[in-house]
């Protein structure tokens, strides 16, 4: 059979028999893996909420938010942070995005045979500092060692738990038409900083990862107004993927304005060079908030007075339709779809 153009029944390119790197990128492939394999297997309502942390009823009106995160970043140390800080902040943030007061973390370490203890000590100390900054305690842990070649030095998994005040309902399904979309600061810093630190693409830049604990920022925002409907930190997969998830969960359209998106010049330049879109690059110290319009200004003011929210701004709004879609008004006044990230971000030549 040569090249034909008639109708027939072909097979789509199979990526269901082996895991590829794209499955870990936080985009569509990850989502497919989770929804086709994990969800049906573990099925329960809390899991199916699909938010960063699970909200659990303990009875007698007590609710907690529970989250877990795995960290496999390479290199272990990068400008602005390290795997330890990333583990603490990432988990704190996941829990904080439910509006819970984050209290306790656990941390599991998978260590590669041959890792220098001094490196581990630096990582653990960094975790201590991050936990102190966030005001949380690391109360349980585990350590395993695997053979040389099997863990890139260190892998860390962390779980976090926080207390949810009564009545707080913050989640991806809560956005309403008319709501305002706020972003706490510049996009793409973490992803570009790590990519530069890896060295494979050969570029240097002064960009630092933005990795930071955002629970105090969230607290300040909730103090300014309880009418915060959605909070999420756009980690891997970037803002584009995050907004798509929310639009899908809430069954709304989210429209953003390209002119409003804050991107550091160096991050923009790196994206130009590689053909990347800053909308899909990971952030580790930023949050997006979808809030009632009448309180948007007050919440923004509170953010700008708080550490990690100084550059907060409004980037868009929620519309009733088209449901589940994210649109962007481009800098030249056109409108286009913002899709989820598909697989891995690959530098392009075209």
């Amino acid at each position: 059979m040569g090249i034909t153009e008639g109708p027939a029944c072909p097979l789509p390119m199979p990526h269901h028999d082996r895991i590829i790197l794209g499955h870990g990128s936080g985009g569509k492939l990850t989502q497919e893996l989770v929804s086709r394999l994990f969800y049906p297997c573990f099925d329960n309502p809390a899991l199916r909420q699909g938010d960063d942390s699970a909200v659990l009823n303990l009875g007698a009106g007590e609710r907690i938010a529970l989250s877990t995160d795995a960290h496999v970043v390479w290199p272990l140390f990068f400008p602005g942070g390290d795997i330890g800080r990333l583990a603490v902040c990432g988990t704190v943030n996941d829990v904080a995005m439910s509006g819970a007061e984050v209290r306790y973390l656990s941390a599991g370490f998978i260590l590669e045979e041959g890792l220098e203890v001094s490196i581990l000590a630096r990582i653990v100390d960094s975790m201590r500092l991050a936990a102190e900054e966030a005001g949380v305690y690391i109360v349980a842990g585990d350590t395993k060692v695997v053979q040389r070649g099997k863990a890139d030095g260190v892998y860390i998994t962390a779980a976090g738990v926080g207390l949810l005040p009564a009545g707080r309902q913050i989640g991806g399904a809560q956005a309403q038409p008319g709501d305002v979309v706020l972003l706490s600061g510049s996009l793409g810093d973490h992803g570009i900083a790590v990519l530069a630190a890896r060295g494979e693409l050969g570029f240097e830049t002064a960009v630092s990862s933005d990795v930071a604990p955002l629970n105090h920022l969230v607290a300040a925002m909730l103090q300014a107004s309880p009418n915060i409907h959605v909070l999420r930190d756009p980690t891997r997969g970037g803002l584009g993927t995050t907004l798509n998830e929310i639009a899908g969960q809430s069954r709304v359209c989210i429209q953003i304005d390209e002119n409003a998106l804050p991107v550091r010049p160096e991050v923009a330049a790196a994206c130009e060079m590689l053909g990347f879109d800053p909308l899909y690059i990971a952030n580790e110290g930023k949050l997006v908030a979808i809030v009632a319009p009448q309180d948007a200004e007050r919440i923004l003011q509170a953010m700008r007075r708080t550490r990690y929210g100084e550059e907060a701004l409004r980037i868009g709004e929620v519309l009733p339709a088209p449901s589940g879609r994210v649109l962007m008004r481009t800098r030249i006044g056109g409108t286009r779809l913002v899709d989820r990230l598909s697989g891995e971000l690959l530098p392009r030549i075209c």
Partner: protein
Amino acid sequence: MCLGVPAKIIEIYTQNSLLMGKVDFGGVLREACLAYVPEAKVGDYAIIHVGFALNLLDEAEAQETLDTLRSIMDLGDELGLQPDLQPPAESVA
């Protein structure tokens, strides 16, 4: 078919008998091969594609074109020929 990005040449050197340079994309630095722009000087701008400078950018030519476009635009404004800034309503969803 050609992701070519402007960058400023900030250093020029030879390596393995190849003319190379360090270029600045605007806060992002990388090495690039300058073999195809042997006349390049530090401070020149070039379009970089897969780590190679394709051609130098002609700043004077660029400025002239932009100035012409701007003056046509201003003239258009003066004559009351307003550019259409809103896309047609039916083109979204």
